[in-house]
């Protein structure tokens, strides 16, 4: 059933809040005051509730079924964490309140930092980045600041494997680096020879995801780090896949200099339909002095939030955003860490990898794994070779999965694999759900091979909407509702 937009519900003169009247006469704002109507509809509370509850039911969600988006780590979001983040002592804290009134918040940041440093084996962490890509930016800015401090400011190149997340080259370009791709071997890893060849004195850093976006651990990671350091460059690790190794492997032991940690992936803060996330960056000893402000230090009289880089810390490269980071996400992630503990987090990695390998094993009977040899890590990658000749594409297959009640896997990524399908179940999926998923996919694969093309080309049939025309949307973008859309126009407010 179609749900109208709020602009089509006729509430140009309504409000769903009750506010006391305010005296407006004494203002000296004169013609700084807005005269024209804004054009905002208002709805009573019951209408608002119904509108958004109805809309919500058009979404798929982790809480409804498997959400196996590779590289996204869509795991269970515990509600305890939501409850904790809503304690007034966290949720109702002003970022610039006097520091003596926020000691518990600073203590939490300090404890979170301790966990992140311990889990990664790195000596420092910058908490302020607001998402993974923001963390990458922070990491590269640290690297640039370090190079500049060391007289290496001329280094202008960043090496990135072809299988990297789009954010990697985008971030490097953003920081003004030119991006050079590193080739990939047949078995889905960084081509060490190619890397060695490209590690020129102009290279500032390499950006490698490990486990990589093919779901594979970079076996030669220690050698990669050694070569990189030998060339005077830094090793940036994209931590999107940290879930596969948390509690078992420390990136610090692999030679990593900087790595962002997506708290909304590994540490389960909810993705919320597109955020907010949080992307703290752990840093090696070499980069630690080049972290951005602010940071927390423990002093004799409690914790201090250092907001301006002064004195010893003056090598800080600046500020990533107005305040101190995503506190709401810190609380959730810390609650998650405490809940799991050292033992639970290790089990997280093990179960995530076990679940992915189980899917890979079961689905290999009908689909073609991109790298059949050896185990995968926390995600299983397939190519579309098995669809050859069926007339069904990766996209078609994904849309048909919707009709089975599942969210599709990540498609067409990484780019190095043709028609890629990247499946990440996470550790919070029960075996029953994996079996249900495998059986659905095996049946679908059978249908594709049996020539039931319509079932795929027309899919989805059972979703709230049929397949949407993305080309039309891009050709003539309609990005806001306009009153001429439906012949409705906002009326000025009536006098009360």
């Amino acid at each position, binding site marked *: 059933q*179609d749900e109208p937009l709020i602009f089509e519900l006729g509430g*140009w003169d309504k409000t*769903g809040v009750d506010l006391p009247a305010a005296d407006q006469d004494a203002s000296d704002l004169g013609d700084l005051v807005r005269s024209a109507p*804004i054009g*905002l509809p*208002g709805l009573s509370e019951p209408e*608002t509730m119904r509108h*958004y509850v109805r809309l919500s039911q*058009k*979404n798929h*969600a*982790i*809480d409804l079924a498997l*959400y196996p988006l590779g590289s996204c780590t869509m795991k269970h979001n515990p509600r305890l964490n939501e409850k904790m983040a809503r304690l*007034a002592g966290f*949720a*109702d804290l002003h*970022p610039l*309140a006097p520091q003596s009134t926020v*000691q*518990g*918040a600073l*203590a939490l940041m300090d404890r979170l930092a301790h966990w992140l440093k311990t889990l990664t084996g790195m000596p420092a962490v910058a908490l302020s980045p607001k*998402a993974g*890509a*923001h963390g990458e930016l922070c990491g590269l800015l640290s690297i640039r600041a370090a190079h500049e401090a060391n007289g290496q400011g001329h280094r202008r190149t960043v090496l990135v494997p072809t299988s990297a*997340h*789009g954010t990697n080259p985008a971030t*490097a370009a953003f920081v003004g680096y030119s991006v050079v791709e590193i080739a990939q071997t047949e078995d889905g890893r960084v081509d060490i020879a190619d890397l060695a060849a490209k590690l020129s004195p102009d290279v500032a850093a390499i950006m490698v995801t490990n486990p990589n976006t093919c779901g594979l*651990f970079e076996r030669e990671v*220690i050698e990669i780090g050694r070569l990189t350091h030998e060339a005077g460059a830094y090793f940036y690790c994209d931590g999107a896949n940290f879930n596969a190794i948390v509690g078992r*492997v*420390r990136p610090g*032991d692999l030679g990593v200099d900087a790595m962002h940690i997506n708290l909304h992936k590994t540490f389960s803060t909810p*993705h919320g*339909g*597109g955020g907010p996330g949080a992307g703290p960056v752990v840093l090696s000893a070499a980069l630690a002095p080049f972290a951005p402000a602010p940071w927390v230090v423990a002093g004799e009289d409690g914790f201090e939030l250092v907001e301006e880089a002064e004195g010893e810390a003056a090598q800080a490269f600046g500020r*990533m955003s*107005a*305040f101190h980071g995503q*506190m*709401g996400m810190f609380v959730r992630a810390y609650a998650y860490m405490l*809940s*799991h503990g*050292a*033992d639970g987090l290790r089990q997280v990695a093990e*179960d995530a990898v076990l679940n992915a390998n*189980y899917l890979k094993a*079961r689905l290999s009977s009908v689909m073609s794994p991109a790298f059949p040899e050896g185990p995968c890590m926390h995600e299983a990658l397939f190519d579309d070779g098995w669809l050859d000749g069926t007339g069904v594409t990766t996209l078609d297959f994904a849309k048909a999965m919707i009709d089975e009640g599942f*969210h599709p896997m990540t498609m067409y990524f990484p780019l190095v694999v043709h028609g890629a399908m990247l499946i990440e179940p996470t550790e919070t999926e029960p*075996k029953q759900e994996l079996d249900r998923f495998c059986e659905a996919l095996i049946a679908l694969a059978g249908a594709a091979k049996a020539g039931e093309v319509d079932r795929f080309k027309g899919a989805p049939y059972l979703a*709230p909407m049929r397949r949407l*025309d*993305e080309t039309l949307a*891009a050709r003539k*973008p309609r*990005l*806001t*509702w306009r009153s001429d859309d439906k012949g409705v126009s*906002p009326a000025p407010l009536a006098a009360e």
Partner: protein
Amino acid sequence: MRYLPLTPADRAEMLATIGAATIDDLFVDVPQAARRRDLFDLPLHAGELEVERELSALAAMNRPAGAGPFFCGAGAYSHHVPATVDHVIQRSEFLTSYTPYQPEIAQGTLQVLFEFQTQVAALTGLEVANASMYDGSTACAEAVMMAQRVTRRKKAVLSGGLHPHYAATTQTIAHAEGMDIVRQAAAIDAEAAVLDAIDGDTACVVVQTPNVFGVVTDVTKIAEAAHAAGALLIVVTTEAVSYGLLKSPGEMGADIAVAEGQSIGNGLNFGGPFVGLFACREKLVRQMPGRLCGETVDADGRRGFVLTLSTREQHIRREKATSNICTNSGLCALAFTIHLSLLGERGLRELAAINHAKARELCDALAAVAGVEVLTPRFFNEFAIRVKGKAAQVVESLLADSVVAGVPFSRLDPAAGLDDVLLVAATETTTSEHIKAFAQALAGRTA
């Protein structure tokens, strides 16, 4: 462990299906040297009750804004958010869904984003808006870089009225991209100085209204000067509620408007997550950063929504993207949209009027305190006062009276030499009792 559904029997059966003897067989690719056999030196798992106790104890060490007289603003404001907002954003279908890459099963999120974009465009008086940024400060930095792409010029002039943390963020990020950032000195009425800095190399000027000292400015003249020089005007707003009372950036000639949206629908959260608003003229849309939601139709011809113009974005465009943003502030944008749907035009105007009235009441009360000088001529819900001695010390000393007096400007910009300037804000949560307590405490200290 309560979040891990696999039983030992499941694990054994699955390993058998895989053909692995032990879980370690699945980690064979990890170099021996990096395999940690022992548990890390961290506590073991804890039950829900224990976790709740530890976090509640930490929370209890903080003083929430709502605990008493509280006057901090400077980019984050203590507003009341209706219970409906928090209820809806906690629904599983919104909370535990991903970025809407599969529009057929994400219309809930997508339609909300379309509503959000329309609301932001309406508030800012511009034609198009994106589906949210991390916060106001990073939106400001992105706007400056967008101006570079649009104008192919490198110089950005930041007004001295811009929030110092916004200026610092912009400097950090945009400078990295090779821009030349001209940051003007902090001053109460800094906007006048902007005009002089505009020249033929200028990509953009960045002006904040109400500015960090609370001054409300008509930026029409700055817009004209910028446009005359071929530059863009970026207008920054840190208090979104002010849109309910003041002329919109678009009305005054802004090309890009960015704002911190926290005040609507979102809590203070010690500074994050917040939600950045970003709007611009329609002709600039293809240089916009961030995600965009657009209207289209499905195979049956029914109206629906999709993420669109993604050829600007990093996952398609990689190093040529308009921004590196991937995750944004979707859930905060949802909260913003629900709260604003509840308010509507009538409610937002009323809310803005109350905020303004409370600030005037506060201003009158503080102006009557001996030794206090009100510095801000025309304000919305925040203004600057000059106190005797250092503002930071005033704030500390008033804590003894349970009054959180505001933000010392020196905390935002220690080098500005404005140590006696205190920024104070009032909102609909401010009561007359709070105001009296503040004035009395301040008078007591001054006396």
